């Protein structure tokens, strides 16, 4: 008799019949054999360790062959639209196949914020296990970085950045116009190793400011963030004007007043520098920021933003 079983991963397991297996093979006929294997195992055992292989295998099947190489050595920050050329209609095809294979239902609304391969994997895992969905990856353009960071040009070494619960990534292109390159070195501009470390530290600051610390309702006060220590710093590659640094940091420990990260810099596929530990100290704002009530001058129209007007009233 057919019965549902709850596994300890939180997945409700339905019996996997021979007919289900035939349908699964048919549904995944254009995916790799490994994708089918992972899907069959998941359907039989409910083991969520198979989910990344299934989701990646399904995404791969919809990526044009000439772009599939990108997926092979991709990290979770590979962007679905910009890097893989997947449009919203293809995303829908991916969702329909994922729904079919994992026997789940996904709403259109939930898809809007899935920007990276990592977002998609995390989303599917949470859905399958019935966990609350995490904050999706947030992309932060340079203008916004400048407006939120305590560090400002000419000492800011972040270009566009993305932040999610698992860490942060940013790019920085060495323009050659950096003031210190005139003297570092004479007629031989090389980015100082201390600046590489500084750039990773700045990305960690952005991570803290963007509220990824995980203590609900509290905001980090940017005036309280300072460098404390670093360990295991190694440089592997000389970086010069024209190089684009790919910076990434991942939190290792986050507990007020200390935040420890591991950091890495790549130029293309080449490793440029790693830091096993960078530790910052930080503090929360004394009280949760409240909107400061503003007294509107009489002649100023106040109904421009209905939502705000309602709050003020």
């Amino acid at each position, binding site marked *: 008799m057919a019965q549902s079983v709850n596994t300890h991963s939180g997945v409700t397991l339905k019996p996997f019949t021979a007919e289900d297996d035939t349908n699964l093979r048919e549904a995944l006929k254009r995916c790799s054999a490994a994708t089918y294997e992972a899907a069959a195992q998941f359907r039989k055992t409910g083991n969520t360790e198979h989910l990344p292989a299934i989701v990646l295998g399904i995404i791969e099947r919809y990526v044009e062959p000439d772009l599939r190489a990108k997926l092979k050595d991709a990290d979770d920050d590979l962007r679905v639209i910009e890097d893989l050329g997947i*449009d919203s209609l*293809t995303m829908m095809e991916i969702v*329909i196949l994922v729904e079919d294979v994992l026997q789940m239902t996904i709403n259109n609304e939930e898809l809007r914020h899935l920007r990276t391969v990592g977002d998609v994997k995390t989303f599917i895992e949470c859905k399958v296990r019935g966990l609350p969905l995490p904050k999706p990856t947030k992309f932060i353009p340079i203008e916004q970085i400048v407006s939120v960071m305590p560090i400002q040009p000419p000492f800011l070494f972040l270009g566009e950045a993305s932040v999610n619960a698992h860490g942060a990534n940013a790019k920085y292109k060495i323009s050659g116009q950096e003031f210190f390159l005139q003297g570092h070195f004479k007629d031989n501009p090389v980015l100082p190793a201390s600046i590489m470390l500084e750039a990773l530290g700045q990305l960690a600051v952005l991570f803290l400011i963007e509220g990824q610390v995980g203590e609900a309702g509290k905001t980090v006060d940017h005036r309280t963030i300072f460098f404390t220590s670093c360990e295991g710093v190694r440089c592997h590659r000389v970086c010069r004007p024209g190089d684009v640094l790919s910076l990434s940091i991942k939190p290792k420990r986050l507990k007020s007043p200390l935040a420890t990260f591991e950091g890495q810099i790549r130029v293309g596929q080449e490793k440029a520098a790693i830091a096993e530990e960078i530790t910052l100290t930080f503090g929360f704002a004394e009280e949760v920021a409240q909107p400061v009530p503003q007294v509107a001058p009489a002649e100023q129209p106040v109904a421009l933003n209905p939502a705000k007007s309602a709050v003020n009233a």
Partner: protein
Amino acid sequence: MRKVYITGVGFITSIGNDAVSVSESLRELRHGMVQYPPFQKPDVPVKVAAPIRDFQTDTTDQEDWVFPARYNIRREILRGMAPHGVYAYCAMLQAVEDAKLTEADYSNPATGLYAASAGSPFLLGYHLERMRKVGVMRCPPLGIVASISGTVNFNLVSQFKIKGASTGFSSACASSAHAMGFAYDEIALGRQKRMFVIGAEDGNVESILPFAGMRALSLQTDPSIASRPFDVARDGFVGTGGAVVLVIESEEEVARRRPKVYGEVAGWGQASDGHNVAISHPDGEGLRMAIENALKYSDIAPEDVDYVNAHATSTPIGDISEAKALKAIFTESPSRPAISSTKALTGHGLSLAGAQEAAFCALAMKEGFIPGSAHITNLDPACAGLNIIRATLPQRPNVVLSNSSGFGGANVCLVFKSV
């Protein structure tokens, strides 16, 4: 009114997948009929069809389809296409190349695209079945644009980045003749400089066999005589599919670009039977009026017409109606224009027919021949007095008419002139 010229053609048809082989088939009267494998079942009385060669589009999964290596179609394009969408895409590439058009020439607000097809009953049926079976949210997102009528213009306008006028036409077997007529108007009135005209059909089980219900299809088992317009023993039409594309351009564009010219589109006319939803008027009244209108607007006298490419589909009633209409037009000299139905070779392409036959006329004018009316053993006495030619004539027709008639009694006559 600006003059309008045909400057490019593309063919995926039952008698050839490029202009050279189509031209050979027309001259040598080589037909495209076979005993169509999907019809060879006891419960299907129809046995013959005129399928497209070198393409396999008989599965509902576009990624299984096979087409000649010269056409490379990416998955993201293919997923929104019906079988005849693929034919149209390939014929479009041929026409663009034939007319020597660059992307800058055709992707601009002065270049439009008019198309006609009945959609894809094959894919529509599959998608509806899937919707009922697995639910509305698990249907392929592009199922609609691949299968409904209009799929040809949706696809080609976006894929070729067309910026000018675009729409589809739906008058059944007169559809792409209507598309040609209205495309001519766009250029003649100065609204567009260049138009693509496309007729296309799947030509598979789902698009052909529904006509068996109305007893319109030939039940002949011998492919070489199944389609025989004007023959006394004709017993219905033979279904076909494919796609044909024509490029037509204004005289200014022809002077500027100096492309090769197949012939001039001199004008067109249309009229309706106002008689029956599916049966043509017994005296061909609507078609006669359409031809009269076409000649009047083109400023051509009946006695100047050299060749009529007839609509004649090989149905008992339809062919007689057309013969009567032609007799009523050519009263002074009924034996003057050569008349043939190239559907004896191709079968009847429904929405494809008008564009297909217009492009055949273009080849005849450019290359200097008049295709014969094949497969006639005993001419129907009702056609006596008309010059229905049974062999291809090695001469250039100077003034050509091409007739099309569709359900609801819609009739179109296109007029061409050699240059």
